[in-house]
């Protein structure tokens, strides 16, 4: 089997959007393009969670996972959410494959317990070996400012986890609001996250939170990457091949 690429958008924010397109709609659009949108809400201890509903809805319509977390647990959460999201996406594909084999109304639960293990193995296998593209969107609005060092740690931690996989990884990093634009690219696609230290201190935060435009930008970035790659490579998820 030839394996495709998993495309994940990881949104790290602490509250409500207040500028531009509806982020929930943008997340739904991203999903149409075959991306998954995952959201991590970073809270202060004792902080109220105004943005909770929006965070949940973005993830829901983006086909991804959401998680609220206190800043000090961020590292563990970011890598866990990413891992879970990958598994979930793969499971979705496997689910479709299963239906073509077993019939349209069948689920993994309809397999006898002894057979399920094999399906899990395939999912594990793909999660480990598939290539992964993660586009990270960081909310740099004023209230996030003092949480940014923690976000930086969490992203480095994420790269430790992902680089321990067998598959290839590519990252790209955007901040919103940017210094001049709503959304600013901090890092173009790269297989290494290590230069992140140089980027982070340059972040400056503003008052608005254009979450929708940020998601839109993420979709464009993925589209550009895809067209750059051209038609040579098939982007299908799984392809039968000789072996």
């Amino acid at each position, binding site marked *: 089997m030839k394996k495709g690429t998993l495309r994940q958008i990881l949104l790290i924010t602490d509250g409500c959007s207040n500028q531009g397109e509806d982020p929930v709609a943008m997340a739904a659009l991203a999903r149409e393009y075959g991306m998954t949108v995952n959201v991590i809400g970073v809270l202060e201890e004792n902080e109220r969670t105004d943005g909770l509903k929006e965070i949940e809805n973005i993830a829901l319509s983006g086909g991804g996972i959401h998680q609220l977390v206190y800043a000090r647990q961020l*590292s563990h959460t970011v890598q866990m959410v990413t891992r879970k999201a990958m598994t979930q996406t793969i499971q979705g594909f496997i689910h479709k494959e299963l239906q073509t084999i077993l019939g349209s109304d069948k689920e993994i639960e309809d397999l006898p*317990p*002894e057979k*399920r*293990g094999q*399906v*899990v193995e395939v999912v594990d296998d793909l999660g480990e070996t598939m290539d992964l593209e993660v586009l990270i969107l960081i909310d740099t609005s004023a209230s996030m400012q003092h949480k940014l060092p923690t976000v930086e740690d969490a992203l480095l931690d994420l790269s*430790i986890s992902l680089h*321990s996989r*067998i598959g290839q990884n590519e990252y790209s990093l955007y901040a919103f609001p940017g210094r001049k634009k709503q959304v600013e690219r901090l890092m173009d696609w790269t297989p290494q996250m290590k230069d992140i230290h140089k980027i982070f201190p340059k972040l400056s935060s503003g008052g608005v939170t254009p979450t929708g435009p940020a998601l839109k930008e993420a979709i464009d970035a993925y589209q550009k990457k895809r067209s750059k790659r051209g038609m040579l490579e098939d982007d299908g998820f799984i392809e039968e091949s000789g072996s």
Partner: protein
Amino acid sequence: MTDSSKNQAANVSYGTKIRGKWNNECYQIEKRLGNGALGTVYLANSRKGHVAVKVGNDTMSISSEVNVLKQLSKVQGSVLGPFFYEMDDWEVNGKRHPFYVMEYIHGEPLFSFIQRRGKEWLGILMLQLLRDLSVLHREGWVFGDLKPDNLLVEGAPPKMRWLDVGGTTVIGRSVKEFTEFFDRGYWGLGSRVAEPSYDLFSTAMIIINAAYPKRFDRPKENSEAYLMNKIDSSSILKPYRTILRKALTGKYQHALDMRNELFTLLQEDNPKSTARVKTTSRVTTRKQSKKTKNHKRTRWVETVLLFALILTIYTLYLVGYGF
């Protein structure tokens, strides 16, 4: 996680009979043992006697744990993890809950055992752990989420048992599940690739955790120096210094290498540690001082007996006994 709220399996009440849809086995719930992210573990009564039953919501994750338990139950000559019985589905109120049945481990948490029975058990139980790890590694697996919470001490003679094998990962892949304090990635001291040295790092952190029950966070930089400093400022940890350093910096390729050095250390340390016991407990002090007079002679007799025993075994071996 998002699914923690939908963990309806968390409330199966006392006396409930869980019957499997596929195998038709019945389990009567006696009490709740604990709650995990993926499900809830109950003590239950069955035809097999007492068993532990984990009831979950998500078929995939339950099946994933079952995969590991099955593999571990297959390993000959060593008991790794709870013995696996079966997996099934329980249908109740139109909802389907996947569950699996495993051996009930009637044990005591590692640190509470050590606290009750004495510090000298720490080293001994670590020897056991390292031996079991060497078997697990030989079978091509790494434990991953190794921490005191996943270790119980069971029975007489006390034996270290493993719980929650959900993090167990095939060597060469990325570790599935971990806990920051015991994860070398968190400390910036290595990758999360599943290899024997990953577990040995966690083992070292378990020993450190024994001296610092509250644990501690990582420093901004230079974790190695920071951890060594923690080790040097604890009287419990100091004797283990060299071994801990090697494990923390990934110098051991095999669990048995670490085990052998720990074993040697415990042997050297033994006379000293009995002296330490004397000062800690009055009751033993009396017994001990009475013994000291005869100490040398007993030792000598022991040596002779041991030698005789080894000779006998060796002779039997040469003769080909048991072939």
